[in-house]
């Protein structure tokens, strides 16, 4: 993991001191709310429906066990005993007091964390594959480049007041688990014909009220040119992005309006102007950062572990967990393990302080003290020896963390919705709870297979409904909660936009509609055909007829 240098420490501590002073001045009336609001937002502090909400950055979703313990401590001491892991690999606290926020930020700074740039029109936390450095299908670990981007984008003076917020995602794997095509900039680590590492660069993706899938700007960008090229991309956007209308201010609108060819031409022209000034870091610096992400010293072990096979043959739940929640590691004899934060009937992404402490302890014991957060709101132990899987699963299961549903229908992404969020039109969490309760049958879920449901409580799309195999969008229908169903979206390498199937439903109706869609799939699927493939083959009409009846 990356470790702060003296500059990082000084920067974060200075920010805490600055915010402490700002909060004091707000509390004693020297600052008005109008003056204070942009200052608190720069430190990730929102005012929601019932309380303040603090969004803490988890850079590229990577945490140490000690950092997780600190998150648990903050939940216990300053909040109400839980935190909420988000679709941008961050954590949110729902109940902090304004006057205590500087103390929280100081506690975070003590473990090399902060809440800077988790809000506002700046470059946000860089996200990546939750299995980075721990998956067999990877060209290279993307985290050193994510860290490089973090350093470049932190407090970048030119990009602190962009037309709108800006999100970058990077993956190094063949399977896109970071939804890079739904980001303002997406980067795919790849190898060219000469065996050199570089990036495919995409731009102009985004969700919200205008969903757009990112387009390729450059097929191969050498590693050493990364920062100057990003600088050119941001500069063109910063100069020409729409500042007159916040709904048209994201880069996706600019790229759509000028066309990706023209955007690319302008980026390349800008890059030619700036690439020779020292924006890019020397190779030694990239090597220095890479060293922090060196693979852990794992002794190669056998992939055949009789105790695992034996338990799987006797216990269907463990067998399901093995199939869904563990993945192939790049080192033989190891797995990456997904800890589901989606217990049936539970709140997607929530973890109690006790659960966070337990995950930290398990990471120390089984996973090189490393933890990841996925954008699908689960936690990951990246480096677990296969021989330890039965014991680990039992400990997780006892703590309510053993649900074997990763990637299945009940592994639902849901935004906080109207239970917490001041922007929401409807609640999201109760819909997720009702669906997971309706489908609380592991045999049925295993039969249905991979199926991603994503729920947003408003058009801002924090619940990624546009990318759901089944998406659910909450809308305000004359003051009542109403839920639209969308089908056919994907956040993976085959990214696609989900399409609205028809009129919306109330909260019971939407659960029935999901069940009818699943029934069509089960009735129509071909041998081995997953839900999304079946939808793409069948088209919407078969599903529409089942959900709404023949018209």
């Amino acid at each position, binding site marked *: 993991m990356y470790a702060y240098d003296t500059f990082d420490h000084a920067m974060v501590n200075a920010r805490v001191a600055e915010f402490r002073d700002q909060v004091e001045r707000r509390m004693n009336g020297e600052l008005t709310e109008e003056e204070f609001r942009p200052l608190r937002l720069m430190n990730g502090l929102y*005012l929601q*429906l019932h309380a303040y909400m603090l969004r803490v950055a988890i850079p590229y979703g990577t945490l140490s066990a000690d950092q997780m313990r600190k998150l648990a401590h903050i939940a216990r001491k300053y909040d109400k005993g839980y935190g909420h892991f988000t679709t941008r690999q961050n954590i949110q606290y729902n109940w902090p007091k304004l006057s205590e926020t500087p103390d929280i930020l100081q506690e975070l700074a003590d473990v090399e964390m902060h809440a800077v740039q988790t809000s506002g029109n700046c470059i946000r936390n860089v996200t990546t594959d939750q299995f980075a450095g721990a998956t067999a299908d990877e060209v290279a670990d993307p985290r050193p480049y994510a860290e490089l981007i973090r350093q470049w984008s932190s407090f970048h003076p030119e990009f602190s007041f962009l037309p709108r917020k800006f999100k970058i995602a990077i993956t190094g794997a063949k399977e896109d688990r970071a939804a890079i095509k739904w980001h303002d900039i997406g980067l795919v680590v790849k190898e060219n014909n000469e065996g050199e590492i570089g990036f495919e660069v995409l731009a102009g993706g985004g969700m919200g009220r205008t969903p757009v899938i990112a387009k390729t700007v450059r097929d191969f960008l050498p590693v050493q040119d990364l920062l100057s090229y990003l600088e050119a991309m941001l500069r063109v956007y910063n100069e020409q992005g729409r500042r007159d209308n916040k709904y048209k201010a994201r880069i996706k609108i600019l790229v759509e309006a000028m066309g990706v060819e023209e955007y690319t031409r302008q980026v390349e022209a800008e890059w030619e102007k700036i690439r020779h000034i020292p924006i890019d870091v020397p190779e030694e610096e990239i090597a220095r950062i890479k060293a922090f992400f060196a693979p852990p010293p794992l002794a190669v072990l056998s992939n055949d572990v009789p105790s695992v096979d034996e338990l799987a043959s006797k216990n269907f739940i463990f067998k399901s967990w093995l199939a869904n929640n563990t993945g192939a590691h790049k080192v033989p004899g190891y797995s990456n393990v997904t800890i589901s934060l989606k217990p049936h009937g539970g709140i997607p992404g929530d973890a109690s302080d006790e659960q966070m402490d337990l995950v930290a302890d398990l990471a120390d014991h089984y996973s090189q003290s490393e933890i990841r957060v996925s954008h699908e709101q689960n936690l990951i132990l990246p480096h677990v020896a296969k021989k330890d899987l039965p014991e680990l699963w039992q400990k997780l299961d006892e703590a309510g963390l053993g649900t074997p549903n990763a990637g299945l229908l009940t592994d639902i992404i849901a935004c906080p919705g109207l239970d917490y969020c001041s922007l929401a039109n409807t609640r999201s969490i109760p819909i997720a709870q009702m669906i997971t309760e309706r489908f609380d049958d592991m045999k049925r879920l295993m039969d249905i297979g991979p199926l991603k449901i994503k729920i947003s409580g408003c058009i801002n799309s924090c619940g990624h409904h546009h990318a759901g195999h089944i998406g659910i969008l909450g809308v305000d229908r004359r003051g009542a909660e109403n839920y639209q169903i969308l089908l056919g979206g994907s956040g993976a390498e085959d990214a696609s936009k989900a399409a609205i199937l028809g009129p919306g439903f109330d909260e019971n109706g939407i659960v029935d509609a999901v069940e009818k869609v699943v029934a069509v799939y089960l009735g129509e699927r071909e041998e081995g055909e997953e839900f999304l493939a079946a939808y793409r083959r069948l088209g919407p009409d078969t599903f529409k007829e089942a959900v709404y009846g023949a018209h």
Partner: protein
Amino acid sequence: MAKKITGPQLILANRLDDGRAVFLTAAGEWSKQVAEAAVANNEEELTGLLSVAQAAEVSNHVVSVTPVAADVDGGAVAPAHIKFAMQSKGPSVRSDLGYQVSPNWE
């Protein structure tokens, strides 16, 4: 200047320190109980309540002062729109924590 309204209104805000949703009462205090909210039935009454609320904003007791449409049913008052109704009740989930457990939760 009087505010144009089409029905009863109440004044919702968040406390400065903890962000807790509170309602302006007829006595000019801020209550966690929507049942204690003062109801403005015409534009003049709303203007009067807003001036009290905005003074509390200036003196740093509350932020985000918002007049919201109210449903008045017999003696019971509640925000008409679901968003503000949610704000008056607390989250509908996590019934083990927060003011959804008890309306007097601090």
